[in-house]
């Protein structure tokens, strides 16, 4: 059993175990009475709730988290581990097709491999980092609760007349003689303190002046805000609360947004660059985007939705908007942000004509999309049947034409043409829409005799249609966000209250004309001394503020 005998103060008040200063008169209970050093005034000397003479296992866990020392260690460990996470880029900063197991070793060699193996490549969502945050959260709750309740109790029932030792062992003190009527002097003194915003309580020749008590709650309000903030972040992992994905849409395409019932179309992507005269000399000639935006249409799917539907989805337009950096499209909690773009042109379709080289007559133009082109064309007296197509034309090992990819990088089309002067069963004609391929594969030679009679050709660039750019949109949804902001706001409020206002108290008693004054603040002793010196000077006692200092800690 811990020494229980000293919990009863000489003033008759029964204090809890662990009390440093009597809750009623302020008499120091724990230490040697002969000591004259300034008192430890933290939490007004009340016992923390957790202090108990014989702790059970639950108390022990509680006490662990109740310790500020542990809290500071947790903060320090968290900040050190957070540093490690910034050595190499985190996995999360890469987009698709990223293989972390290969990337780190390939890029950074052995250190990179170790970095990956140790799990530092995803530090911030690793179990141990989250565990640290959970422990900090726990510590925030328990530390605060353990201190704020007793502190509240102590501050709401303060006694005006304090023990003399309590007063003289404050960090800011004054002692001296007062002439004349002591009650009158106290009254005058309190008038001057009132001007400084103090609330005055008197008990005969004893006085308690107090201001800005609310600032004591600042740290706890701050902690409540932080807890709310942490909980809100945790809430994001609840199903349906948060999503974060990227879509790549070429100009004119419509793509589904995975995980939702929405589709989004890139009507047109535009990018504007800085003109040379807008750039400083050393940047002239470089390409710097000034503004880029996507004219996007958001659709809701009403039928044939989802991955398993086989038919064409039925879409209903919901919203159309220009999406720009800093100006996302917002609908029903879903937000589409401009993320990036790619301005490498991709051929979409051409509108060529069929030209009879002998007569000079031309037929068409006809529309030839790169993907899923129609199979039959009728052009004047000619009929064409699309026999084969290749997205990226090439010749395979066996000499047969093959496609090297499924993207229209070097498209080729084989038509079977019938008509006047051509065989009954038709004559094949290979057509390369892109000039470079036409030359590379020597279209005329492949077509042989028919090349002298007919030609499929595009008349001018107007008849070539590129998807000039594709835009990358970032799709986000975050229900927890509101709480995140509330948490941040509350925490900020607490910080402001706790930092820019200080709880100041002045105790005073006059025993047989001898004035004893002690003052305490939780921060800013400089201001505390200035207040005391001001009131003393106005009441006829000139004193240098600095001389009031009794030494000790400068919290």
């Amino acid at each position, binding site marked *: 059993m811990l020494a229980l005998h000293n919990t009863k103060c000489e003033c008759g008040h029964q204090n809890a175990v662990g009390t440093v200063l009597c809750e009623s008169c302020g008499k120091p209970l724990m230490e040697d009475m002969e000591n004259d050093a300034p008192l430890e005034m933290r939490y007004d000397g009340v016992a923390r709730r957790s202090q108990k003479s014989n702790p059970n296992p639950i108390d022990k866990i509680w006490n662990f988290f109740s310790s500020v020392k542990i809290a500071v260690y947790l903060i320090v460990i968290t900040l050190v581990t957070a540093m490690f996470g910034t050595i190499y880029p985190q996995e999360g900063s890469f987009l698709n*097709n990223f293989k972390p197991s290969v990337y780190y070793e390939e890029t950074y060699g052995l250190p990179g491999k170790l970095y990956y193996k140790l799990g530092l490549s995803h530090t911030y969502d690793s179990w141990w980092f989250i565990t640290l*945050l*959970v422990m900090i959260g726990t510590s925030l709750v328990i530390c605060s609760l353990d201190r704020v309740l007793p502190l509240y109790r102590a501050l709401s029932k303060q006694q005006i007349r304090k023990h003399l030792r309590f007063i003289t062992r404050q960090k800011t003190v004054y002692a001296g003689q007062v002439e004349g009527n002591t009650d009158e002097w106290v009254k005058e003194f309190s008038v001057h303190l009132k001007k400084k915003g103090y609330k005055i309580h008197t008990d005969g020749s004893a006085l308690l002046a107090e201001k800005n008590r609310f600032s004591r709650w600042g740290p706890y309000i701050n902690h409540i805000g932080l807890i709310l903030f942490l909980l809100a972040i945790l809430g994001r992992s609840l199903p349906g609360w948060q999503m974060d994905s990227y879509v790549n849409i070429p100009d004119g395409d419509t793509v589904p947004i995975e995980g939702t019932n929405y589709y989004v179309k890139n009507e047109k992507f535009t990018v504007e660059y800085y003109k040379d005269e807008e750039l400083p000399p050393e940047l002239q000639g470089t390409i710097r985007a000034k503004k880029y935006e996507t004219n996007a249409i958001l659709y809701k799917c009403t039928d044939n939705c989802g991955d398993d539907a*086989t038919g064409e989805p039925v879409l209903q337009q919901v919203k159309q908007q220009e999406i720009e950096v800093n100006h996302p499209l917002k609908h029903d909690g879903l937000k589409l942000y401009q993320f990036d773009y790619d301005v490498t042109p991709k051929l979409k379709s051409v509108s060529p004509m069929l030209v009879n080289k002998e007569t000079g007559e031309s037929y068409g133009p006809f529309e030839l999309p790169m993907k899923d082109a129609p*199979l039959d064309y009728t052009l004047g007296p000619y009929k064409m049947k699309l026999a084969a197509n290749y997205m990226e034309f090439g010749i395979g090992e066996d000499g047969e034409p093959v*496609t090297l990819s499924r993207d229209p990088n070097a498209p080729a089309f084989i038509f079977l043409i019938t008509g006047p002067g051509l065989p009954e069963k038709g004559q094949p004609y290979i057509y390369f829409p892109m000039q470079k391929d036409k030359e590379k594969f020597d279209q005329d030679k492949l077509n042989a005799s028919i090349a002298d009679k007919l030609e499929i050709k595009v008349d001018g660039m107007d008849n070539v249609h590129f998807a000039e750019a594709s835009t990358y949109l970032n799709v986000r949804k975050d229900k927890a966000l509101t709480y995140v902001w509330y948490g941040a706001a509350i925490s900020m409020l607490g910080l402001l209250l706790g930092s820019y206002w200080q709880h100041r108290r002045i105790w005073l008693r006059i025993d047989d004309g001898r004035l004893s004054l002690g003052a305490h603040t939780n921060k800013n002793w400089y201001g505390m001394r200035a207040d005391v010196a001001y009131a003393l000077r106005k009441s006829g006692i000139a004193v240098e503020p600095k001389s009031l200092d009794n030494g000790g800690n400068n919290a």
Partner: protein
Amino acid sequence: MGKYRKTVQIVILLAVLVVGGYAIGNTLFAAKEEGIPKIGEQPPEFTLADLQGNTHNLSDYKGKAVVINFWGSFCPPCVKEMPEFERQFEKWKDSGLEILAINLSEDTLTVNNFVRRFDLSYPILRDVNRKTEHKYGLESYPTTFFVKPDGTISDVFVGGMTEKDIDSRVNQLLQ
């Protein structure tokens, strides 16, 4: 207040345990879906149309030995292995083997020409906008999944397969 202390302590510690456990558990068990389905797992469900427009659900094939093959005409090993699959299909189809060859979102003409060229008789399914491909997390082609009648994967093969490769795996699948 003092007499409730114990209750308060227990309530708060329990709350911490639940909330914190949830947070930590999330990071431990929300293992990222990386890569393709593995042996012993169930392959993701899909509903796709074949060249005739009939829809096929993977779940329709439950109770049968199924080979799911992803292919494209642009991938030479795919082109090479397709006839070998055809011969294997002829060999095993009476024993109940099903082959679902999923094309990697190419256009109709390309697929039709390809099928005609090799005279394939097993169903060719058409993926659209690379959806199924993404669902399976494919990174290279061809990729073939061997699915047992109980609906779990018995083997995964990434890359072109020879007839011998296919034969031994189908043999195992049908036992």
